[in-house]
């Protein structure tokens, strides 16, 4: 399977060249276009209970689609919001994605839901996180551009900007400054990430957009 992320960073989409025997699992509604002979199957997102849990707490859909083809075919996957898409190659390792970030993965990648803790909730990132593990490529999407940081000691990220991180990264919630400056600077609560490990961040914050639109309604 060959895959290329195109039209980056604003309107990224993944062009997948499927070969016979390839299988790609994608978030519901991620398909933008495909060859007519691509077979599409819909299944619970990891079983009924797991799907319900992922829907309720992981920000993912109840169903995922599996695409395969008997002969070479083309498939284009995309996301709902404008923004970039990143590909991660898992090699027996795990990776955590924030709710709603998962786009697609190859066969061999397992999706799971993990308790992220109250720190994550207070940081505005939800009580659960999506854990991807196994072997194969994972595509995840973001609102805005995606940039990564190799965190060694401590790194501060505003809530709503975290997309994914390695399991070696610890997260706790804190204030960026004193109580007064934290709340009146508009930064509010931030997440303090502690390495070692790589984190992926998005350059825009979706709640920021909704807040801005709300203020104009």
């Amino acid at each position, binding site marked *: 399977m060959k895959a290329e992320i195109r039209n980056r960073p604003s309107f990224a989409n993944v062009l997948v060249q499927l070969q016979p025997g390839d299988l790609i699992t994608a978030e519901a509604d991620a398909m933008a276009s495909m060859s007519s002979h691509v077979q599409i199957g819909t299944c619970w997102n990891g079983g009924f209970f797991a799907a319900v849990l992922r829907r309720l707490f992981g920000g993912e859909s109840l169903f995922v689609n599996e695409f395969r083809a008997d002969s070479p075919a083309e498939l284009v996957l995309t996301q709902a919001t404008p923004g970039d898409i990143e590909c991660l190659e898992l090699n027996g*390792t795990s990776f955590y994605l924030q709710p709603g970030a998962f786009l697609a993965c190859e066969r061999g990648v397992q999706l799971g839901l993990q308790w992220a803790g109250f720190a994550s909730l207070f940081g505005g990132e939800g009580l659960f996180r999506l854990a991807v593990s196994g072997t194969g490529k994972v595509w995840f999407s973001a609102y805005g551009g995606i940039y990564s940081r190799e965190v060694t000691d401590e790194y501060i990220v505003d809530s709503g900007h975290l997309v994914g991180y390695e*399991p*070696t990264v610890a997260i706790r919630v804190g204030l960026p400054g004193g109580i007064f400056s934290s709340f009146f600077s508009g930064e509010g609560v931030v997440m303090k990430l502690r390495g070692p490990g790589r984190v992926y961040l998005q350059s825009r914050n979706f709640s920021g957009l909704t807040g801005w639109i709300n203020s104009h309604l």
Partner: protein
Amino acid sequence: MSVWDIQTEFAAGVFSDQVTGGRCSATVQCEASGLVAQTANGQRFFLHYDQLQLELGGASGRMLFCRNSDRSLTIFCEERGFPAALELHAGVMLSEQLAGLFSTARRGRRVRSLLLLVGTPLLLLGLVGLYFAILQMGRAAVMTLPVSVDQKIGDVAAVSLQQGSVQLTDPRILKPCQQIVDRLSPYAALPGLEFQISIVDSPDVNAVCLPGGRIVIFRGLLEAAQTAEEVAGVLSHEMAHATLRHGLQSAVRSTGVIVAAELLIGDAGGLVAVIAELGQHAAITKYSREQETESDAEGVRMLHAAAVDPLALASFFERLKEQPQQQLPRVINWLSTHPQHDVRIAAIRAQVATLAAQQYRGLEVDWDGLKQSLQE
């Protein structure tokens, strides 16, 4: 547990400049002199126990990082049995570090549990307190709104209240009712309200005064009342709901914190929009028991000020109680929203006893003509 029961190989990972990308997954084994990590492509890494620096962390808080002194190599493992295996093989070389780490972690967990135990109820209490404080302030904010807001909301609610009903337009019925209202309205507590009546051809014993002053009287009320003073008593109570702005307060209560918060920051448009959206009068004519008691007292005050005998209201309540059972469904509308009438009759009598002396005058309306017109 013997040494043979302890697991010695664990799923782990390695951070090192010597692997592609700086990290990779590996398996780690506790050997006699140190930790050995082996990657999938055969690379081996060794950390001697006496140079190990341990640290707990990671997303789960249970990941054990094992580093050499210059931190150029890190082997990390999250598996449950790993610290025990490490302690068993490294012995005294690491026991102090491990004990320190895990006692700090345990202390942290205890503090977090305590915070959770104490903090959660406090947080919930705070949220409930905030909810009621905002509603309370919303209710106070209602009193500062201009009367035009009451009128707008009353107009919206009137449409839903009168939908599908037949209006009585006979002047022999309308005029006496309007005269009763005109006698009371100069003594309304909220200036600026225009009290306009309409009469609905319905057997229900009921009357409603919407925000802004629109009064809807049901035919059943006029039939049930024996004197014009009794109608005045009921209308004074209903008018008091409007002058005390109970309808707006009920709307704030039933539509919740968002509307209350909007009122506090000075936007009454949300309240009007919500009422329009609901499209029903129920949101603003469902009063609490406290509001009913308040309206009784205010109604009595209005009647007294207008020189109409306030005991007429109490006597109307008493007669409603004596209605035969088969007629109860007709009066149930009014009674259901006005519970505990025995208590209310007593409260009205008690209030009247405290009022200054007043020369009550009868209502100069054509009551017999009204009754006759109703029968026709």
